[in-house]
C-alpha cells in the first residue's frame, strides 16, 4: 500500500479534454471515490493512474516514485474494469490465478492456490471455482472480477464502477462487503462511480468531478454539508437539493451576491399554514415506503422535500415555509457565505 499523487494531469483525445489539470493526493489506506456523471473523465483518470494512457502533461507518483513514464506492469496497481473483466476461455480459478502467474511475479503453485481459495471464500464464490467464467450470473462475475484485483496486494486498487451493472440488492450487499474488505486489508482504493450512495457509504473522501475537472474533495459529510458550488450540492442528497431564486420565500438577510438559495429537507421548516401565512401549496405526496417525498409549489416553482412520516399533510393543503441555515449561491453558482 502506498499513497498516490496526481499533479496537474491533463489528457485530451483529439478535441475532447477528458481530464484537465487534475491534482489529487490519495493517502495510504484511504478509500477515495471519484463521483461524476458519465463522460466526466472518471475512467480516463483511472487509466492514467494505471498507465494505460500517457498523460499530455503533469505527473503521477505512486509510493513516492514517479511513474508517469512507466509501463502498467511496473506500476504495482490493479484495475477492476467496468465490464469485460473475465477471460471467457478460463475457469473461475484460472481467472483468479491469472494475475499471480504473471512472469514478473512467479509465485509457487501452492501459494497461488492458497491465495485464490482465501479470496474466493471472502467473496463467497468458493463453490464456483471450477466453472467456466462465462457460466456465472452477473453478480458472481463481478465478484470474480473484484477477486482478481484482490488476490494481489498492490500499491493501489483502481475500480471503475465495479457495481454499476448489478441489481440494487446485490449492489447494496457488495458495497458493504467491499468496504469491509478494504478496511480489513488496509487497502488504498481509488474508486469511481456515478452513484452517490456508493460514494457516501464507502468513501473516506469523495472527489467530485465534472467535465474532466476535480471540483471539490472532502469527506462525504463535508461534500454534503459544505459544497463549494451548486454543481457539487446537486451531486449528493435524495431528494436532490432545491434551488430557489432569492426572494421567492422570505429568508431574512442574505449574504451579499446571493441570488440562489439551496435548500435540502433539513434546511426547510414546513408547517400547516394558519390565517393566510401560506407560502406554498402541497401538490402531492409520493409514498416510497420508507420515506415520503413532499412535492410543493411556491409561485410557479416546484420543490421536493422529505415529509415527516407522521405528518398528516395531504395534496392541496396550504403550508408555510421557512429556511433554516440554507446554502447561498451567487449567479455563477459558487457558494457565498
Amino acid at each position, binding site marked *: 500500500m502506498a499513497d498516490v499523487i496526481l499533479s496537474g494531469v491533463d489528457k485530451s483525445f483529439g478535441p475532447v479534454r477528458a481530464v484537465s489539470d487534475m491534482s489529487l493526493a490519495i493517502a495510504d489506506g484511504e478509500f477515495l471515490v471519484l463521483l461524476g456523471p458519465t463522460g466526466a473523465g472518471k475512467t480516463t483518470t483511472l487509466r492514467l493512474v494505471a498507465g494505460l494512457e500517457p498523460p499530455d502533461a503533469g505527473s503521477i507518483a505512486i509510493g513516492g516514485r514517479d511513474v508517469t513514464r512507466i509501463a502498467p*506492469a511496473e506500476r504495482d496497481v*490493479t484495475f477492476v474494469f467496468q465490464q469485460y*473483466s473475465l477471460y471467457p476461455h478460463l475457469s473461475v480459478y484460472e481467472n483468479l490465478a*491469472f494475475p499471480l502467474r*504473471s512472469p514478473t511475479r512467479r509465485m509457487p503453485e501452492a501459494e497461488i492456490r492458497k491465495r485464490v481459495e482465501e479470496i474466493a471464500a471472502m467473496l463467497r464464490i468458493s463453490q464456483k471455482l471450477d466453472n467456466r467464467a462465462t457460466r456465472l450470473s452477473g453478480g458472481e462475475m463481478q465478484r470474480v472480477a473484484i477477486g482478481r484485483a484482490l488476490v494481489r496486494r498492490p500499491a493501489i486498487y483502481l475500480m471503475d464502477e465495479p457495481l454499476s451493472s448489478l441489481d440494487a440488492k446485490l449492489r447494496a450487499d457488495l458495497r458493504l462487503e467491499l468496504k469491509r474488505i478494504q478496511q480489513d486489508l488496509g487497502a488504498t482504493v481509488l474508486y469511481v462511480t456515478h452513484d452517490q450512495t456508493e460514494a457516501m457509504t464507502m468513501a473516506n473522501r469523495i472527489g467530485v468531478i465534472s467535465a474532466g475537472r476535480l471540483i471539490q474533495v472532502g469527506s462525504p459529510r463535508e461534500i454534503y454539508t459544505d459544497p463549494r458550488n451548486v454543481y457539487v450540492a446537486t451531486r449528493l442528497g435524495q431528494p436532490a437539493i432545491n434551488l430557489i431564486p432569492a426572494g421567492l420565500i422570505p429568508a431574512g438577510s442574505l449574504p451579499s451576491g446571493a441570488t440562489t438559495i439551496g435548500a435540502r429537507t433539513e434546511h426547510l421548516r414546513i408547517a400547516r399554514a394558519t390565517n393566510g401565512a401560506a407560502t406554498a401549496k402541497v401538490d402531492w405526496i409520493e409514498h416510497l415506503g420508507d420515506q415520503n417525498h413532499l412535492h410543493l409549489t411556491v409561485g410557479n416553482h416546484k420543490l421536493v422535500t422529505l415529509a415527516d412520516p407522521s405528518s398528516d399533510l395531504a395534496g392541496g393543503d396550504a403550508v408555510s415555509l421557512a429556511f433554516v441555515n440554507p446554502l447561498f449561491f451567487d449567479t455563477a453558482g459558487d457558494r457565498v457565505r
Partner: protein
Amino acid sequence: MSATGITTAHSVVAPTGRTRAIAGAIVIVYALITMIPLLWIVVTSFKTPDDSIAYPPKLLFTPSIEGYCNLFNTRTRQTPEYIAALPPATGQCDQLVRSRNMVIAGPSNVIPRFTNSIIIAFGSTFLAVALGTLTAYGFSRFRVPFANDLLFFILSTRFMPPIAVAIPIYLMYRAIGLTDTKIGMILLYTAVNVSLAVWLLKGFIDEIPREYEEAAMIDGYSRLQAFRKVVLPQAATGIAATAIFCLIFAWNEYAFAVLLTSGEAQTMPPFIPFIIGEGGQDWPAVAAATALFLIPILVFTILLRKHLLRGITFGAVRK
C-alpha cells in the same frame, strides 16, 4: 391439435417439426447434388481402365485397385516370355500389371508431389495466418498512421485475379532463382492469402475487448505475453476459419503451379491431369489421385469444425 380444440403452444423461435423436415430435405438434396461428382470420382478410382470409359457408364462393375497401382507405380511393357520367366508376383499390383503384359519399373512421382502439396499449402497457410494475425492485431490496437489507406491497399492486392500478374512473377522468379522451388511457392501463396487473412482476422480481433489485454498488462504481463495468453485463445475461432480459407486456396491453386513448377516443387494440381496410361489418359489413376487429394482438406476441416461453425458467422454469435 387435440380433439377438444386445445392447441399446444410452441416457441415462436424454435423451429417446428415441419420446418425442420423441410430444411432437412433441402439440405439433403443439396448435399446429394454436390456429392455426386465426388462419389463418381471415388467410384471411378476403383474401376478398370476399360470400365472407366465404358459407354453407357457402368454402375455395376467388379472393383479393382488397378487405378491405385498405376498411380503409385511406373510400368514398362515386356514380352509375355519375359514376364513368364519372372519369379512369382509378390503382390496384387504386381499381378494386375503383369496381366497387362507390363512390369513395375519403380515408384511414381505421386508421393513427392503429394508431399510438395502438403508442405507448400500448409507452410503458406501457416505463414499467411501468422502474418495476418500480427498485422490485424497491430491495426486493431495501435494508432497506425494512414491505417485505413494501408488496409485498403492490402485489400487492393485482391482486386485482380492473381494470375493476371503471372508473367511478371514468372520473370521475377526466374531472375532470382525461385522457379520450381518450394520456398518460392510458399512465398507466392502467402502473398496472395495474407490480405484475406488480415481482413478476416481484423474483424475478429476488433471484437475482442482490449480491456482483456490491458488487465493482463496491469497484472504484470508484457504486451506480447498478453497477446499470447489472452488474445490468441480468444481469436482461435477466427484463426481457424481464416486458416481453412487460406489452405483451400493454396491446396487447389492450379495456374501458378503449372507455370512455376515442373519437378522439384510440383504440387498435385498440375500433376494429376498428366497421369498418362497406355494410349491415353489413365482415368482410374487420375480418379485415385483426385480422391487422395481431397483427404487432407477434409481432415483439416473436420478437425477445426468446432471453431469453423462459429467462425463462419464472423463473430456475429459470439459471447
